[in-house]
């Protein structure tokens, strides 16, 4: 019988309701509680579990004690298998990580967690891409793309996956500087990838075939970019799964989170910093290829350190190539792509319409805003 893992981060989302961005750190949590905040994670987890309840007999539910999952599971009518130990009321990121590792060891097919970007990072640190994971959204605005759109849909998707009716794809885990966030600055950096389920539609009565899967779309984009690459030009590849697909298509390595440079189908440098790039721009023509990273559609966040405002200024807008799968653009629900480089002048001239490469010989005109 399949095993489903459940981890609830009891403090996730604590700060949001009372206007505190993020909940990392005991101090913030104390302040939040003092302001009367009640953690939303358990409620959200319950909403997700509700969608799994009709199928309770089809899987074993593994969870951590008390407020880290057991309480919610029982409240929803499950009889979970409780593993591990915690000090109630004093749980930390270490507990989340331990829970994730132990559940992976128990062979859970899918790890469902209720939490925010911080919880996602903790789980990533613990298990990486070792097992499929799916987030039940509970915190403030999510930057990581590993969450279901709503708690109910996370529950539904988990059920589909357990019934082998969903595929798996990679989604970004983002590192958000919460201090900066409280100051109103978005410093989002790609942290890693988790494998999450994705669903296909229920009914098939179409007059036209569906869009290609995301993996195929990335392959198509990579083929287009590779074909259009000019000799003698340095191509700076930003982080992301789509840019990684480009490197992969050329048979080249790509650092997971960093910025790499290729020229004439060979690696020039891996994981470069700003200084290195500025040097490079002296040597000859260059273009940068970026893809939106995270759930909010940021093209250039302040986290994109190597591709700094100075680098962008030198490149000029015409040398910025944006690649993205159509699915990523659709997920924005009509919102524009965003830039927040830290330099408002640069932000301004980055804004406008871009010819986003969305497939082989396919472009989508999409708006970038700041």
């Amino acid at each position, binding site marked *: 019988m399949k095993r489903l893992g459940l981890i609830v981060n009891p403090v996730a989302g604590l700060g949001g309701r009372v206007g505190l961005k993020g909940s990392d750190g005991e101090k913030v949590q104390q302040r939040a509680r003092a302001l009367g905040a009640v953690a939303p994670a358990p409620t959200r987890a319950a909403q997700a579990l509700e969608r799994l309840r009709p199928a309770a007999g089809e899987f074993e539910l593994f969870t951590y004690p008390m407020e880290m999952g057991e309480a919610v599971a029982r409240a929803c009518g499950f009889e979970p298998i409780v593993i591990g130990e915690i000090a109630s009321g004093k749980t930390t990121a270490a507990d989340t990580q331990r829970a994730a590792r132990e559940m992976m060891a128990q062979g859970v097919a899918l790890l469902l967690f209720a939490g925010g970007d911080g919880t996602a990072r903790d789980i990533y640190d613990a298990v990486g891409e070792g097992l499929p994971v799916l987030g039940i959204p509970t915190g403030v605005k999510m930057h990581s793309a590993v969450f279901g759109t709503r708690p109910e849909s996370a529950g539904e998707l988990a059920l589909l996956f357990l019934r082998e009716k969903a595929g798996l794809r990679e989604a970004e885990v983002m590192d958000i500087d919460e201090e900066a966030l409280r100051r109103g600055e978005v410093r989002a950096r790609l942290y890693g990838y988790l494998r999450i389920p994705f669903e*296909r539609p229920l009914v*098939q009565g179409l007059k*036209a075939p569906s869009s*290609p899967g995301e993996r195929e779309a990335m392959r198509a984009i990579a*083929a287009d970019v590779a074909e259009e690459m000019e000799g003698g030009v340095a191509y700076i590849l930003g982080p992301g799964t789509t840019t990684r697909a480009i490197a992969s298509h050329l048979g080249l390595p790509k650092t997971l989170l960093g910025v790499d440079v290729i020229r004439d189908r060979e690696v020039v440098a891996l994981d470069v910093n700003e200084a290195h790039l500025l040097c490079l721009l002296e040597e000859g023509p260059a273009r940068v290829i970026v893809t939106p990273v995270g759930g909010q559609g940021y093209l250039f966040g302040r986290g994109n350190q190597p591709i700094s405002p100075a680098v962008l200024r030198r490149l000029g807008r015409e040398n910025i190539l944006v690649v993205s799968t159509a699915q990523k653009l659709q997920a924005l629900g009509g919102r524009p792509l965003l830039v927040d480089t830290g330099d408002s002048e640069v932000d301004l001239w980055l804004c406008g319409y871009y010819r986003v490469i969305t497939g082989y*010989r396919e472009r989508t005109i999409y708006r970038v805003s700041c």
Partner: protein
Amino acid sequence: MRKKPVVYPYIPNSVPEVKEQMLRELGAESMEEFYADIPEALRLKRPLDLPPPLLSEYDLRRHVEGLLQKNRTCQEYLNFLGAGCYQHYVPAVCDEVNARGEFLTAYAGEPYDDHGRFQALFEYTSMMGELLRMDVVNVPTYDGYQAAATALSMAARITRRREIVLPRALSPDKLSKIRDYVKPDLEIALIGYDPETGELDREALRARLSERTAAVYFENPSYFGVVEGHGGEIAAMAHECGALCVVSTDPISLGILTPPADYGADIVCGDIQSLGIHMQYGGGHGGFIATRDEERFVMEYPSRLFGIAPTMVPGEYGFGDVAYERTSFARREEGKEWVGTAAALWGITAGVYLALMGPQGMMKVGETIMARACYAARMLDRLPGVRAPVFRSAHFREFVVDFSGTGKTVSEINQGLLARGIFGGKDLSREFPELGQSALYCVTEVHTQGDILRLVEALKEVLQA
């Protein structure tokens, strides 16, 4: 005096009181509000200048039937035309089934509310699968031309090569369609035919094949009605150089002819018009494409593929689209064309035809067609100055008749036949000048011995004149 508004039988809410009531419920003064988004400059400021309406059904019918009366049909005239559109017998049951309102007016509902449509089309593809001895058959595309063009595009995508080899013995119309369709991506090489047998010139083919060849395409029976006897060799030659073998055939011949898959064809295509569909002045075509059940083929179909599936209730059949998410393409040549409304009702009709005919019917009709065509050729050959069939091969349904020895042109001859109530075979003299004053004659199971002898007599008169 205000003209009384017309209440249209096809428009229930054209009753003025109802229209007004609906406008009121919508809080609208007039229909103008609904077109507010359309700028003044784009609005037509006058009524359309069209013929006055024929509001009563009787008047409409009289008008259209009056126009149609000017036509002379192939029931009134004796018809020997083929060349891609064929006069075969259409069983009454075929017309009954495709006149059923449910089938006639259904479209794209789910495999629940439209289960019958899915099953009927699955049964069509299944029966075609048996005729063709192949496991994958598409829901029909527009016609045999499209089927050939798509089959060739599929072959190019699968092999990732850019050259397709076609026979010169091909309908110029079909070649025109293929040329237009593959223009962005593929190059076409044409291979001649053996002047004696009409079969594909295998030596010329051998010389032309290379590692650039994506597909070798031929038709069996050919445009000239010749049964290609060396299909196996041709397929083998294609495979040797890494190309695919694409064969176009007419399913009505497959009761007696070996299905192309059995001699090495990888993709088989053609038109289903012969299977229970009236000629309709060229309005009754549907195209089929069939392959083996291998992923690399299946993923290349732009058409819908209906597969069978279980439902929640044991023993119940359900259907749905196979390989729902076609792979995207990473090269222009891999683009999966498109899917749209095509010829489903004709697919269902062809299924009904095959169900009625069964194996014995298909064998019999094939034999009858071959026998009558052969007989007709022999009778024509006995006319002075006439040579038939031009090619020394077995023929199915069609054959080339050479009138060069008569001193008359096909055009003159056909005019003479027309005056005697006969449509003579298609004039090939412009399309294939090397054949001289030749015509393509078509004889099917609808031509009795009497019909054939009538043709012979008429020709005798015409040639003597």
